[in-house]
């Protein structure tokens, strides 16, 4: 059965106009599975990606988890993966002219998981956070 990346809902984030705010998304994969990191070592592998698609905030940087180099039975050399629990932090800039009040920032987390013998289709998980703008 395909592994599911579990991502708990993000808490509401308070942010001041004109400032920076960091949103940290926590995720976990079941034991025995891995997902490719955001910078896979092979061109054919699908990277872990977080894309923010709509909302009042401007993405400044996305910091992906530190990858592990692991060797699997299907790879001649170690490949760059994430396993277990990991976090992805997004630093946003809050526009000075943003409207006060709650706003939704939405995105998609894309990952492709494997175990030691098989791989599973890439999945897109919707991600959303409520931002309380002051």
């Amino acid at each position, binding site marked *: 059965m395909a592994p599911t990346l579990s991502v708990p809902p993000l808490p509401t984030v308070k942010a001041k106009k004109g400032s920076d705010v960091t949103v940290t998304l926590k995720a976990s994969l079941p034991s025995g599975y891995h997902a490719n990191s955001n910078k896979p070592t092979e061109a054919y592998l699908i990277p872990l990606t977080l894309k923010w698609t709509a909302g009042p905030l401007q993405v400044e940087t996305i910091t992906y988890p530190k990858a592990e180099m692991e060797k699997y039975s299907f790879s001649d050399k170690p490949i760059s993966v994430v396993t277990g629990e990991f976090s992805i932090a997004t630093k946003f800039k809050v526009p000075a002219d943003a409207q006060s009040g709650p706003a939704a920032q939405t995105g998609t987390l894309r990952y492709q998981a494997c175990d030691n*013998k098989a791989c599973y289709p*890439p999945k897109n998980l919707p991600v959303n956070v409520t931002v309380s703008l002051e």
Partner: protein
Amino acid sequence: MRNALRLALVGLTALGLGTVACAPQEPVRAAVKDDKDRKTAPEFELKDVNGKVVHLSDFKGKVVLVDFWATWCGPCAIEIPWFVDFQRKYKDRGFEVVGISMDDDGWKAITPFVSEKKINYRILLGDDKTGDLYGGVEALPTTFVVDRDGRVASVHVGLANKKDFEDAIEKLLETPPASVAKSAGHSGS
């Protein structure tokens, strides 16, 4: 592909695989099933790179290795050179490999991969319907070896063993289709 899971248990059981793993895949060393335990392989209708419609029944009378794979699948990339070898080695004895790609990006992703790997067998673009027919294929590679009578003789989920495939192919190639066996039996009596 997203809907494939819901039919996995029913489908794989129906095809005689028996169990669906809920934990990381262990290699399935699927021996060739006894003749009486084999079930008819589902008919599919898929297109090749030229848009030609291909059915499993087009290979009637042959031993067919049906490989569900994708370009982003590392274990699939290990097995594909084996299948290239098998296609070359056994083609003249009535054997065909058919690769069913489950790539969402279609031929844009598949075509360069086929060139790079020098794939010498038929590649078809898969879909959810075909995956469901074959038991909700989700773990890749998943490979079915079909006998000359169009029945599933063995199923391998995940990276398998080259020798297991070869043993299955050799065994199945030595067995004539039931219709030929029957007529040979009649003529001899």
